[in-house]
């Protein structure tokens, strides 16, 4: 079942077209990553879907409803973690959560929300004293208070330390397992790769790549990298490589087979391929390839 539906969405600000007719769908219980550089149009798309902006053209539906016209109904089932939004600085973490619980029907217990967001040791701390990462976690706590069916996460782990980031990933995975549909934007490509089952990459307001995460990456093959042994001519290798200084990289559809070929060839000649590393394509490879091809 489709939970989020975007069809031909366009949005401009003061003559600048931030989103240029994009379309995508997110299924129930899916984690969908919207990726792209700063200014690609991700946050604008998110804000239209969250009902903060009205689309100039095209249609958007969340849970089958118009997020602007049916805002009150949509809000009852949606949690939103904004990229930029303020808090009341003089309230503590617990007081902030309590205030938001007042706004929410059947909210999670305060302590549960605080613990879920990884702020269990900070309930009495004033918001103005929280770090940037802790404010993101408080934001997450507020977004999760109403046990939403749909969660919009705009750069959810920006400013978090690695441990907090991984804890947040665990929360997101757990929510997805329970059936929450999650739309995520992030600068951290590893985060998208870890969490999302599907993705779209935006550039200058358009979607330039989209699909299932595993299929998209598998289709791009992988690479074998190693340091070139001394006095070895790269042209003598059994597979074509690109050389950067003393490092050689072999791009291959099946990197495991390519590694076997290279290692067998080296063994027959009594050579070693130091620092050998085999990996499938990452989202970062895809992202950089797309940027390169756009130039």
């Amino acid at each position, binding site marked *: 079942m489709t939970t989020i539906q975007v069809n031909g969405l366009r949005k401009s*600000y*003061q003559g600048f077209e931030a989103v240029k007719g994009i379309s995508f769908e997110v299924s129930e219980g899916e984690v969908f990553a919207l990726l792209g550089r700063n200014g690609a149009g991700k946050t604008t798309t998110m804000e239209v879907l*969250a009902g*903060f902006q009205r689309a100039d053209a095209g249609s958007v539906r969340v849970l089958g409803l118009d997020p602007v016209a049916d*805002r*009150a109904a949509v*809000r*009852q089932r949606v949690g*939103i973690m*904004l990229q*930029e*939004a*303020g*808090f*009341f600085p*003089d*309230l503590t973490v617990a007081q902030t959560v309590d*205030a*938001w619980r*007042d*706004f*929410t*029907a059947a909210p999670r217990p305060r302590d549960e929300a605080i613990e879920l967001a990884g702020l269990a040791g900070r309930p009495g701390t004033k918001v103005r004293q929280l770090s940037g990462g802790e404010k993101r976690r408080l934001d997450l706590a*507020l*977004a999760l208070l*109403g046990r939403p069916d749909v969660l919009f996460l705009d750069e959810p782990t920006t400013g978090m330390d690695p441990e907090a980031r991984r804890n947040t990933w665990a929360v997101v995975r757990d929510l997805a397992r329970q059936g929450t549909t999650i739309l995520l934007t992030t600068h951290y490509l590893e985060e998208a790769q870890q969490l999302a089952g599907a993705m779209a990459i935006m550039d200058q307001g358009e979607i330039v790549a989209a699909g299932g995460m595993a299929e998209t990456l598998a289709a791009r093959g992988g690479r074998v990298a190693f340091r070139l042994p001394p006095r070895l001519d790269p042209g003598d290798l059994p597979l074509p490589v690109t050389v950067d200084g003393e490092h050689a990289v072999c791009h291959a559809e099946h990197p495991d087979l390519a590694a076997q070929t290279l290692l067998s060839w080296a063994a027959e000649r009594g050579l070693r391929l130091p620092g050998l590393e085999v990996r499938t394509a990452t989202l970062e490879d895809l992202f950089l390839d797309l940027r390169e091809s756009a130039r």
Partner: protein
Amino acid sequence: MSLAATYRLGTRLFWRDRAMLFASVITPIGLAVGLPVLMRHVVGTATAVTVSQGMIAMLLSITAFMNVAVALTNRRDQLVLKRLRASRLTDGQILLGQIAGTATQTVILIVACALAVRLLADVPLPANLLAFAVAVIAGSVVLSLLGAAYTAAIPRAELAAAYTMPVFLVSLVSTGAMGPIPLPSWLQSALDLLPTTAVVTAVRTGDLVLPAVDLAVWAAVGLVAIRLWFRWEPRRS
């Protein structure tokens, strides 16, 4: 339930903000009590009554109008309003909670000041207490509403207090709270249309009909302005 929640939150935040408490509670109380008491001893009871009733306009323009305008502009620019809109609150609940909280505080302050002036200097309370109560409640609501609407004209939070200053000064002049200031008749007629003047007129005369019409028109103006121009986020540069 959510309207009550925003009302409680707005009230709680109001009493925590020391800077705003000084500007919109301590200072106005000092003026609204101190000046009539001074006038009673220096000039006489009649002048003290005029100034005391004129001070209602000052309290309305500071404690209601300026307070709402500054609070909402700050929250708009700090993106707190945006975060509130990401919750399950409706826009109406967010604004009404703030307006109702501020109006309540304004009513309490005006009544407290009138009682204080009565107790400290024996300046009589308004003759028609019902008209006083109705006008003060309606005026507090309308001025709070207009303060919310006025935020659309304020470009940045740090300018909010300065932008409300003309409203404060005009309100004082129009009601005679600063003493008799000779004004052209056309200007006095225009100032008589201000909502603060309507409230003071109702308190002085006990007549509620014309002030009620005046306040209703201002309330409609405020609602339309909010509908058309209220901004929930700072302008995108």
